[in-house]
């Protein structure tokens, strides 16, 4: 018997959401505690904006394809 199928896009959204949140968190941490050996172009704060992009994409997909909502 088949259970309710969760869309693959929901799983992808969840992945981007969680990873985005973790990366933004790591970026904020680096702002507060600058690393001893910074990466190249650390001044661009890629963790913050790339993490935010992933988080927003993930949030959109999670809401759009959440279980129980017709796609």
């Amino acid at each position: 018997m088949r259970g309710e199928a969760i869309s693959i896009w929901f799983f992808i959204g969840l992945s981007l959401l969680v990873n985005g949140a973790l990366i933004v968190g790591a970026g904020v941490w680096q702002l507060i505690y600058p690393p001893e050996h910074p990466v190249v172009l650390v001044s661009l704060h890629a963790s913050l904006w790339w993490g935010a992009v992933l988080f927003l994409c993930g949030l959109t997909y999670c809401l759009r394809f959440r279980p129980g909502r017709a796609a």
Partner: protein
Amino acid sequence: MMAVWAMFVADRLVHLSPVDLVIVAFYFVLVLAIGFHLRGQSNTSEDFFMAGREMTAWIAGLSFLSANLGALELMGWAAAAYQYGILATHWYWIGAIPAMLFLGLVMMPFYYISKTHSVPGYLQLRFGEASRTLSAVSFAFMTVLMSGINMYSMALVMKVVLGWDINFSIWVSSLTVAAYVALGGLRSAIFNEVLQFILIWAGALLIPILGLIETGGWANLKAQIAVNASSEYTHLWSTLGSFNDNPMGIHWTGIVFGLGAIISFGYWTTDFLVVQRVLSAKDLRAAKMAPIIGAGFKMLVPIIVILPGLLALAVLPVKLTGETSAVANGGHSYNEVLPLMLARYCGPGLLGLGITALIAGFMSGMAGNVSAFTTVWTYDIYRALIRKDAPDQHYVSMGRWTTVVGVLISVGTAYLVMQFASIMDYVQALFSFFIAPLFGTVVLGMLWKRATPAGGFWGLLAGTLSSIGMWAWVKVDHSALRYVALSPNARDMAENMYRALWSWIFCVVVTVVVSYLTQPKPDRELVGLVYGCTEIPHESAVPFYEKPVFWGVVVAIIFVILNILFW
């Protein structure tokens, strides 16, 4: 800055922070969760082996591409870009796009309408049991061995890059793949491949973005490469007039006829590892669109694979070398270029995502190998030769167990390669023996109704044996390269391409000759299998922008423009 860089990479290539490890661990949890979620949706053989034939064009298309986008593919071609320059892009453009469009627009209707479960299954319908057995046994054997070789190579990379124990990498990744494929079958493999595809882009795209910012754009990058290496490294076609004018030692005829016409068509249209993803599409239009969607994204892959290799030529303060030299002198090898670029730009969090992208690439490739092996073993060997009339549930159980056994054989191969490294070269060469002749057999079978069962079988066998023969000839007498590859200066890649071309010609000639000497099948037995005997459903009811042929033309135009832009 250089001193900081040298310190950073001195011990191991990258050092993961706790947040990086959380991201990697979350990935493993998620792929297993997908497998558990889908375990109730793979109760019939159609569900387990063909994902119920209900995938949308997007899912089938991304999975089609992702099954090929393994970690070794990512790191290997980034390394090739560092070593050979932009010429490596040929493997993504002319070495893939025309073949993918041909699969979608010309071949897919026959694969799909025939309702075959596999490429060997199509050969059985078209040419009979002997051709299927030859193709299935060679594919199953080589796929599972290749999976083991990839597994070992990836574990080695994890050791070099992260300092992880080889045994830990092999067992954790292989058991994870075995669990989610055995639980959810092809559907689980496909869903995870789509997830992995997205993660690969999310994890790798920052390198070219930040790299281009650092170098000051494409024009400055080219200028810097001309200083650090040579201006030949940034031209796609203009240096291919002679074997000696380009870093790869290859001629344009090898690229166009060997790679573009034979190797890529062989791989993308007949290797069941990728074709299986498209066969899972929900209808014919989705099946035709899937390779075209895959082709669209394939054109973009050089952004995350080739561009980092080129950027490394411009910005890395260290000079990368071959593996042997790197080991002897304690430096870094070409194969480490992608992890080095990750370490250069990605701090905590981003680094974890980048490493997750590499692991995801490895697992998607392995899941592709394992699910294709399982299907071919169950349908084309076990059911065809050992037990024909078992209940459907029996074949599903066989599929689940074969998944586990296939992974264990792969693990065994990985350990075998660990002891005898030279096996890797032989197995990779063996795999290439079958691809080009198989394309000859399948394409003649689909497009020429006069091709007979005997012609198909003997053509496939002759093409394969000729490929093995040429390979052995060059091994025994290196001067034979002037005949096989048309030049004594040809390098390994050029030799592979010309060998593929000759073996395809052998296959086609033998198939045609034997076919004219033997009795063809009547037309009524070729319905659904061959052009001219099969009515292809029309798509007149859908608007032009939903037709596969429209998107095929769009992709083809972009393909031509890109080749001219980077000429």
